[in-house]
């Protein structure tokens, strides 16, 4: 009985095998190189979430869109799927490289390993990776590492939180407990303490990796924020991707304040109904980085290696939309200058 079933299942694989033998044996490295007529052909590989995640993938997309418009270039965007392996990421990058895309941008640190391998095989193609600089795995001569000083921006919104808080008690809701988000937390805590050394910072991560649903679960965000607000906080920083909307909703219900992340969340259409509680956002200008990178390639000014987008170059900043922090802006600027000048060193780990 079982034998028959197994044999029968062969048919399924048959289709695949037939396809293999019929079409097998194409060259691996054919078609590399650039588009030919001079115009750039950009390949962009997103991390999980992709275009439309209202977060850093989206930000990257904005940069791409801007570059597209400006330079009249062609672009293809690919996206990672949940739970995939490095091999799949590598394959994605290779497909782009094979397809003649140059430059290729990988969004997210998860591409670090795969990118290192692919870049070696395509020395003529220019690569960029967002959010990662790991010497040894992705530091080839044709790789630009675009990283951000999230802790610096977070420091400033921490300052804003401390200044705005009446209770001396503020909250931090992290989406998923990863080193990247811990950077946000470290900067934020430092910023708060810089203003009010005895202030309380409540910290909560919604989920633990590999459960990344913490970036997508507004209900959890709302519960966590409510807990903080009930415990006396009156400003909550939502470094939690899509779960942030729940944080803002809680703040709105309780008459508290929220701080957004990644983009200027005050202006996001999806958060229109809670925008009046968003006093500021820690803007991480992935779009600027992507645009700059494309421009550098377009201008034949590509530079490999780590490019840190920090406060100084406007890679991270605090948003002022809504005018909720106009009163404290001078103080913020003051801190900003101190960071830029190196007077204040912002820690990147907690």
């Amino acid at each position, binding site marked *: 009985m079982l034998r028959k079933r197994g044999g029968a299942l062969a048919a399924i694989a048959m289709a695949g095998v037939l396809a293999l033998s019929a079409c097998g044996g194409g060259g691996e490295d054919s078609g590399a190189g650039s588009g030919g007529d001079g115009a750039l052909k950009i390949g962009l590989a997103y991390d999980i979430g992709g275009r439309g995640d*209202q977060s850093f993938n989206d930000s990257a997309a904005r940069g791409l869109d801007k570059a597209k418009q400006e330079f009249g270039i062609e672009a293809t965007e690919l996206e990672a799927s949940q739970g995939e392996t490095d091999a799949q990421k590598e394959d994605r990058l290779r497909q782009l490289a094979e397809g003649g895309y140059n430059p290729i941008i990988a969004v997210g640190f998860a591409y670090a390993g795969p990118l290192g391998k692919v870049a070696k095989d395509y020395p003529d193609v220019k690569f960029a990776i967002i959010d990662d600089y790991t010497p040894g795995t992705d530091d080839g001569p044709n790789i630009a590492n675009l990283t951000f000083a999230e802790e610096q921006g977070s420091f400033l919104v921490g300052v804003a939180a401390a200044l705005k808080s009446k209770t001396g008690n503020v909250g931090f809701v992290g989406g998923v407990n990863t080193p990247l988000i811990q950077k946000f937390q470290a900067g934020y805590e430092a910023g708060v303490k810089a203003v009010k050394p005895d202030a309380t910072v409540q910290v909560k991560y919604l989920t633990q990796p590999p459960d990344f649903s913490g970036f997508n679960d507004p209900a959890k965000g709302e519960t966590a924020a409510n807990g903080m607000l009930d415990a006396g906080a009156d400003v909550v920083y939502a470094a939690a991707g899509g779960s942030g909307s729940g944080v803002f909703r809680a703040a709105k219900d309780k008459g508290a304040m929220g701080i957004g992340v990644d983009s200027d969340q005050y202006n996001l259409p*999806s958060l229109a109904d809670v925008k009046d509680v968003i006093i500021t956002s820690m803007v991480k200008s992935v779009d600027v980085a992507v645009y700059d990178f494309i421009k550098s390639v377009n201008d034949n000014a590509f530079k490999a290696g780590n490019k840190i987008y920090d406060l100084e170059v406007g890679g991270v900043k605090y948003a002022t939309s809504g005018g909720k922090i106009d009163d404290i802006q001078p103080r913020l600027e003051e801190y900003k200058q101190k960071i830029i000048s190196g007077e204040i060193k912002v820690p990147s780990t907690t």
Partner: protein
Amino acid sequence: MSASGLAVGVQETVAPPRRRASPMIYFLLAIAALLVVSLVRVLTGAGNLTSSGTVAAALTAAVPIALAGLAGLWSERAGVINIGLEGMMVLGTFGAGLFGWQWGPWAGVLAGVVLGAFGGLIHAIATVTFGVDHIISGVAITLAAPGLTLFLAKLYFTDAPGGGQKQSPPIEDVPHVTIPGLSSVLGDIEQQQWFFVSDLAGLLRGLTTDVSLLTLLAVVLFFATAYVLWRTAFGLRLRSCGEAPHAAESLGVNVYKYKYAAITMSGALAGLGGAILAVASSQFRDGQTGGRGYIGLASMIFGNWRPGGVAAGAGLFGYTDAMQLRGEGAVHALLLLLGIALLVLAVVQLRAKRYVVAGVATVIGVLFILWFALTDQVPPELVSAAPYVVTLLVLSLAAQRLRVPKWIGRTHRRGEGG
């Protein structure tokens, strides 16, 4: 292979169900439990154990899970295992996103229900008409649903204002109700931090303040389910399909029809759970359900296939989850609470002459109390495991008197009875 699961004969070693305890006993038990919680609250100062905020959050967290559990109950009472709950919930969140954004939350809820029911219908076609193993069908649905919704989301939401490839534009919330006057009075009492009284006030306040109409709908559905399944002809026939379909058929009951009805209803309820989740979160997001369907399934087994039990299971989970999300301090206090609860259980088991269980409960209980006494906090990474650990502990140490519907997971073919 079949889905009906292995019994291992464990349930044979426990007492048969006694006469159902009177409501009074449950009431007294609840009071006793609250007393213990209150005591722990006073000892640890972890106000979050009984604050109205925790209770309200627990209620909100419990509703989608409870509805998933209720969905499982409908299906399994008719003899069909529904492991596709997660997938049907996903369909529900998507339906709410698609319609809620354009035509308001109630339209969204309705769409979620309809889409969930559609998922249930597919499960019914596969398991009832084609006699497919229930687990396979459920897994297939759980597999395909996120794919389908994501596919459609890219189509419909990408260019919508405020939407994205993986999320819908914002949905308005439904109205919330508060019992006027009561809330502030209870709030005052809660502020006093009196032993027991404040805790009770917190509990009541959490249940009466700013409650979403959808939460009320869920509560109504629990009572309605209990009524329909246990007091009406429809319910009797439906349950008979899960107990002895051949007997039902021999009395002219159209087993297929009732199974179809039950599974479709199951899908509808799971869809509703998803829709409520989406509306409460103000939007559909890919991956939003985060395993709540499975937790719902667990709460159904936990609740012994009865609505009250499902509610209790979902409530326990929602409570622990809300507590861990609201602050780590409460989880530390939870260690003490668990320790005490285990010691109480040990005494109960000792009186029932179940020495092994009593011993194990004592040991674990003492370990929890030691953990509480020797540390200041539970490592934050471990805190998120609290609801799961608590559920597992309760299941392992509480007496298991599971009464699975007899014909669960088995295929019934028309005319093959007897």
